[in-house]
């Protein structure tokens, strides 16, 4: 009989047992009556011979029970009754836990999705990534991609890695009946999927035979994602072999990736996979596949059996100089920056994401913060449970007196805690889900935010459950231990309600300052992080962000090229400026705070000194006429670009660039020399231009960096990125700007794909997304901790006043003033707060120093912030103690004494 059916058959078993025992007694009674006894006497004798029937029946039943489980079940039922009886306590506890566990689950789920989740492939821990760490004088730039030449070179020499494959994310334009749409995808080596070890959901994978110049046996072969297959072809297997037009060329769908496979880049969801050789077909002259100097392919490989990552890493360091000498021209090879760089082997089983380096540390910080919050929750609940345990002392004493073992009483308290924690944990899953929806809005990469799947799944449940059990142990153990070690006799002798549980109060008094200290540290951290955000917002930018629209152009497929395209840009700008509401419009290659920008090597043409990489490297931006007027950057001297072809050969510097390149002289009218080194062939070219204007300094890639020296070149001279510039439009309202951009585009460049414009204010917010995330969340956590501390202080003081009712009554009868009683209560709070604040202060100093790298313009020892935090905490503490103190003051001496 299985354990399960036994429970359901038990009722019958018990009934049988009771029946046969009754029959037995009757038979025995009749036997005695036959021997001559009276009915009464016989029944009595039968019962005596039988023994204690109730106990025997109980024993008989016990045979079918598992005593431990049954007792836990009984405890749980009892706990539910107890908890229902005190709804205020239960609600507080569950809500506290739900917030604490929810915050932890939410952050951890995000951490898991972004940092910890393994790719859905066999043996993910044997997959590695080979990256280039570039050691430039401006610092190490790690995790850079490689190129096809380096990939082949490594392949030739490695003895520790097998199955090298390259992967480069690429957006494709799919021609559909309804028009053209952009889908994300990747160009990959032919062997990629074999190395990953996946089985296609339909059709076949790409093979090395597909990755050939001119295509493979099926022409250009494409693998589509499972999602795309479902949504566009309703999982129809007959689409294998179908031709589609992808970025102007016909490709054959040969296979479907398995469900759930989203590529090796985290937070991207490619729908098309094509061979690397398809890249030159799409990009034509701008293809990078045959350029040895570009860096655009992320390389992955499997470790050979028995090889560790360190061994592979060591081998890659020896292969690096060989690979460089095989692929780069001699003039480039010996540049210091190339000689000092190296390959690195990094774990690849968890995929790779640009978000990872950006968010790893903030997420870690948040994880620590929520951990502290959970600790505060537990400490708070331990305090509440202690207060509860002391009012239930009588109950525990009676149970002890009736023979309950200590472990049994402890078990009961723990079961109660666990019940609370599990209820909190269940509610927490909803909090976590809501938290993550909210958190993802902060990821600057909106597409990535949308594709990071953070849903309540078994993993989330596991985390929430784990947190709940941990909490139950944390806040249940001390009250449980104390409850099971009550000295029974004195507890019973006291009357049921007047309690002075000395031990418990002492424990509570240890917990409370602990809670206060942790809260203070949280408040200080939150204050520093929010000050950081307000400082960043108040930073002098050198441009305005309101009512400015940034619209990316996608003119790749227009017939106009070179100068013609530049003229088209100018016509669109002029057209937009005629539209209602538009003040200024212009174009630029890079927009500020986008996180990316170009650099170039510049020197004064008259100085005659040779250009050195890095020391003479400046930020550079190609902009149109009116760019500075549109962004509100002040012109300090000279003039703006004219917006004509004659702009070629002129340039504008910002103040710090002018001061650095032409120290001690006016820059206007001087000649600036740009030095270019072609990394593919090693050839050096120079280009001179005349400085026509000086503008004020403005931030470029990052808000945190001081405004860098910058060179502005007229757009159209460098044709490299001419097809994908940004329109910058300043109008009375954003809607008008958007309107103007759409209209002008439709009129002057019909057929070019419509892109999503973004307001400058949003780009600004995105650029401080991490800081905002940290500030908002730490603020929320600090507020939560403050609230919990308030509840804790209130609870402690309320029980203090209850315990001292008689004492306060006596004091008042003896002439103590109401003010004196008030001070008596407040003194208690003050002592706790001082102890907590001193401890918390030390903790906060430590915490503030460890978050130094997250701060901007805030010193970790900022006394104002510390003072404000202490003030907030003390204010909260006294406010929480106010209610119990008022109750103490309103005690009627006569009543208090009479109740004794």
């Amino acid at each position, binding site marked *: *009989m299985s354990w399960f059916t036994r429970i359901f058959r038990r009722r019958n*078993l018990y009934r*049988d*047992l009771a*029946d*046969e*025992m009754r*029959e*037995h007694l*009757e*038979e*025995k009674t009749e036997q005695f009556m036959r021997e001559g006894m009276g009915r009464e006497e016989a029944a009595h004798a039968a019962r*005596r*011979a*039988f*023994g*204690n*029937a109730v106990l*025997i*029946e109980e*024993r*008989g*039943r*016990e*045979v*079918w029970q598992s005593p431990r489980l049954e007792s836990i079940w009984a405890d749980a039922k009892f706990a539910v009754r107890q908890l229902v009886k005190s709804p205020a306590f239960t609600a507080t506890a569950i809500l506290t836990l739900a917030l604490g566990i929810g915050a932890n689950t939410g952050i951890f789920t995000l951490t898991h999705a972004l940092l910890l989740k393994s790719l859905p492939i066999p043996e993910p821990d044997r997959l590695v990534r080979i990256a280039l760490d570039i050691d430039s004088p401006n610092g190490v730039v790690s995790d850079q991609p490689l190129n096809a030449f380096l990939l082949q070179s490594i392949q030739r020499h490695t003895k520790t890695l097998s199955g090298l494959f390259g992967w480069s994310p690429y957006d494709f334009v799919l021609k559909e009946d309804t028009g053209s749409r952009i889908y994300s995808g990747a160009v990959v080596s032919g062997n990629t999927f074999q190395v990953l070890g996946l089985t296609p959901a339909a059709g076949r994978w790409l093979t090395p035979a597909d990755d050939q110049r001119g295509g493979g046996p099926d022409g250009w072969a494409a693998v589509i994602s499972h999602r795309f297959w479902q949504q566009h072809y309703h999982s129809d297997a007959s689409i294998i072999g179908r031709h589609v037009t992808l970025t102007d060329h016909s490709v054959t769908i040969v296979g479907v990736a398995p469900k759930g496979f989203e590529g090796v880049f985290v937070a991207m969801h490619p729908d098309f996979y094509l061979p690397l050789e398809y890249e030159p077909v799409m990009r034509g002259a701008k293809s990078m596949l045959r350029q040895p100097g570009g860096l655009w392919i992320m390389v992955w490989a499997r470790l050979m059996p028995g090889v560790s990552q360190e061994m592979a890493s060591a081998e890659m360091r020896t292969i690096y100089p060989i690979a460089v000498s095989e692929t780069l021209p001699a003039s480039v090879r010996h540049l210091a920056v190339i000689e000092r760089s190296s390959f690195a082997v990094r774990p690849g089983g968890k995929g790779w994401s640009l978000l990872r380096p950006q968010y790893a540390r903030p997420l870690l910080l948040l994880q620590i913060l929520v951990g502290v919050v959970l600790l505060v929750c537990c400490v708070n609940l331990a305090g509440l449970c202690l207060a509860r345990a002391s009012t239930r002392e009588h109950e525990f004493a009676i149970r002890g007196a009736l023979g309950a073992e200590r472990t049994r009483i402890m078990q009961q308290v723990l079961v109660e805690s666990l019940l609370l924690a599990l209820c909190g944990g269940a509610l927490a899953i909803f909090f976590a889900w809501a938290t993550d929806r909210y958190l993802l809005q902060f990821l600057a990469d909106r597409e990535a935010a949308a594709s990071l799947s953070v849903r309540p799944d078994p993993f989330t449940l596991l985390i929430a459950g784990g947190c709940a059990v941990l909490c139950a142990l944390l806040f249940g153990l001390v009250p449980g231990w104390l409850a099971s070690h009550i000295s029974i006799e004195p507890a019973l002798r006291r009357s049921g309600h007047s309690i002075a549980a000395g031990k418990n109060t002492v424990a509570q008094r240890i917990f409370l300052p602990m809670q206060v200290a942790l809260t203070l540290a949280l408040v200080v951290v939150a204050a520093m992080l929010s000050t950081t955000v307000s400082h960043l917002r108040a930073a002098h930018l050198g441009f305005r962000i309101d009512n400015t629209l940034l619209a990316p152009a996608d003119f790749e497929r227009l017939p106009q090229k070179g100068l013609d395209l530049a003229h088209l840009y100018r016509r669109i700008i002029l057209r937009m400026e005629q539209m209602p509401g538009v003040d200024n419009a212009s174009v630029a290659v890079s927009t500020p705070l986008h996180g990316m920008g170009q650099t170039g090597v510049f020197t004064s043409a008259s100085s005659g000194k040779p250009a050195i990489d890095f020391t003479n490297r400046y930020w550079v931006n190609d902009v149109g006429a009116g760019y500075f007027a549109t962004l509100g950057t002040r012109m300090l001297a000279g003039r703006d670009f004219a917006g004509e072809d004659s702009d070629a050969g002129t340039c504008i510097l910002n103040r710090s660039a002018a001061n650095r390149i032409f120290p001690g002289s006016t820059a206007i009218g001087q000649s600036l020399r740009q030095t270019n080194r072609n990394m593919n062939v090693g050839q050096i070219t120079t280009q001179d231009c005349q400085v026509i204007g000086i503008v004020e300094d403005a931030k470029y890639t990052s808000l945190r960096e001081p405004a860098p020296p910058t060179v502005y070149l007229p757009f159209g001279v460098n044709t490299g990125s001419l097809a994908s510039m940004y329109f910058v439009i300043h109008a009375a309202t954003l809607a008008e700007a958007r309107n103007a951009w759409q209209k002008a585009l439709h009129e002057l460049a019909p057929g070019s794909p419509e892109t999503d414009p973004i307001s400058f204010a949003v780009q600004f917010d995105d650029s401080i997304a991490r800081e905002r995330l940290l500030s908002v969340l730490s603020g929320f956590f600090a507020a939560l901790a403050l609230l919990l501390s308030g509840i804790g202080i209130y609870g402690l003081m309320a029980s203090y006043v209850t315990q001292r009712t008689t004492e306060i009554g006596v004091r008042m009868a003896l002439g103590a003033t109401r003010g004196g009683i008030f001070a008596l209560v407040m003194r208690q709070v003050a002592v706790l707060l001082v102890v907590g604040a001193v401890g918390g202060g030390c903790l906060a100093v430590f915490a503030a120093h460890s978050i130094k790298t997250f701060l901007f313009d805030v010193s970790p020892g900022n006394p104002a912030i510390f003072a404000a935090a202490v003030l907030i905490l003390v204010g909260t503490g006294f406010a929480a103690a106010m209610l119990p103190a008022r109750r103490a003051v309103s005690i009627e001496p006569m009543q208090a004494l009479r109740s004794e």
Partner: protein
Amino acid sequence: MTNSKQEARDLFPGALEMMILESLRRQPAHGYALVQHIQQRSNNLLQVEEGSLYPALQRLLKEKLVKAEWGISATNRRVRIYQITAAGMKHLEREKSSFEQMFEGIALVLNPGKAIS
């Protein structure tokens, strides 16, 4: 009364079960009859508290060493009749042989002079 209780407690664990199984091996019986049988067979030396039979029977039922069925006794009374199962037979044999060994060992210790063999 005190005496019988003492006896019952002094039975070693499993002894009552063994006696029940042995009785049932001879013939199926209901609880009351089992008690009578055990007391008679032991010449009333073993004063088993009658009720203590029932937890033991429940244990045997749980281990599937006996099975039970409601029926009508010779005295026209509704009784639950127990029967030994094949597993019960095997168990009884095993228990008896290990009990005999134990008894022999105890006897040797208590009477060191009289070696049995």
